């Protein structure tokens, strides 16, 4: 596809690696796990962006940093003060939200489907 990969997409790829990893991972390990031709510096940049946003933790490992996922909301809040975005569903009506509202019958149908997907 001619389109450039959006930053969100690269960040998601890298986060995916952090979430699947057993422990902290180095940028080189992330790059290897991605199986892509991303430059090492790009991976570094994405990791440090995620750290700045409080979505990843980092720790010194030898001379470099190793990164791990942030697992809870309290870590998220402690890591970084975020801009108070007033994100509520009635103020995002013109955006593409992940799910729309549900009525009772749909909720029941979804619970059945969820059992099916889990099973």
């Amino acid at each position, binding site marked *: 596809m001619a389109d450039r990969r959006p930053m969100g997409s690269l960040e998601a790829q890298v986060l995916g690696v952090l979430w699947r990893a057993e422990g902290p991972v180095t940028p080189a390990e992330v790059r290897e796990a991605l199986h892509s031709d991303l430059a090492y510096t790009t991976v570094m940049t994405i990791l440090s962006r995620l750290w700045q946003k409080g979505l990843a933790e980092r720790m010194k490992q030898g001379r470099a940093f190793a990164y791990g996922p942030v697992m809870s909301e309290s870590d998220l809040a402690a890591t970084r003060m975020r801009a108070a975005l007033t994100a509520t569903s009635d103020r995002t009506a*013109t955006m*593409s939200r*992940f799910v729309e509202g*549900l009525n009772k019958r749909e909720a029941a149908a979804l619970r059945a489907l969820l059992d099916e997907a889990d099973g």
Partner: protein
Amino acid sequence: MNLLLVAPLLLTFGGAVAGLFLTRLVSPATCARVLTAAVVAAAGGMAAALVLVGMAASSELSAVSDAVGWCRALYPGDHGAAPWAGVVAVGILIVAAVRGVRYLRRVRSEHAPYKTIDGIEVVITSEPIAFAVPGRPGGVVMGSELFFGLDADERFAVLAHENAHLRHHHHRYVHTVELCAAVFPFLVPLARQVRFATERWADESAATEIGSRRTLARAIARVALMSHAREPSPALAFSGRGSSARVQALLHPVAPRRFELAMAVSFGTLAATLAGSSVQVHHLALFLVHACLS
């Protein structure tokens, strides 16, 4: 109203209604594209028809007619464009314009807080939100409770879905048809279909990326039920068109119907709508040329 005016309008509406059946026949991407084109054509045709009626009626007024020199040859005799019809047409046009401007303002004000979003942003809120913010830089906003409430695979699925919206520029389709629907509310059902088609499109794209339809289905169901627990929606105008339909489509993909049939319906829909609206615009153009030249 003379037949020349009514026939294209009927054709336009017919094409638009036929579009409603498209979702079952073609891929979500084709559906979104064809329906968006149909909606734009229908809105254009409708606007042209209203302008035409307004102008035809004003040509009946001797004051206007003398001043501008309308040519009556184009609509000879009693074509029934009575002044009251003109007033109604112009009234509808004004209301439509106001509604359109209001919609654009709403989009702008809703997007304003997210101008600085660059990549993935987790916002601390218990509201189960996740949405794509188009534009540059653009990104994905997720509520913290949703983010940490899902397992890693589901979270990744949500991100893949929202990133698919950005990659395929879905906001262009959605904003275009919702503007048309804001202007002419008879297009609201079709606009909903386009929105649903973009959701299905993003689902298919994300399922391919993560390599599991089941994981994405589970993520949609879980987020939808979280939202439901907070504020159940009384009723959807198109029930069965929301989350459960998406989960259903992911878990039980329907083999695409016969290709020719699907293409025939797509092109039929588009052609009918385009034909309808282009006749409309053609009328208007002829009218303007006569008005200006005579």
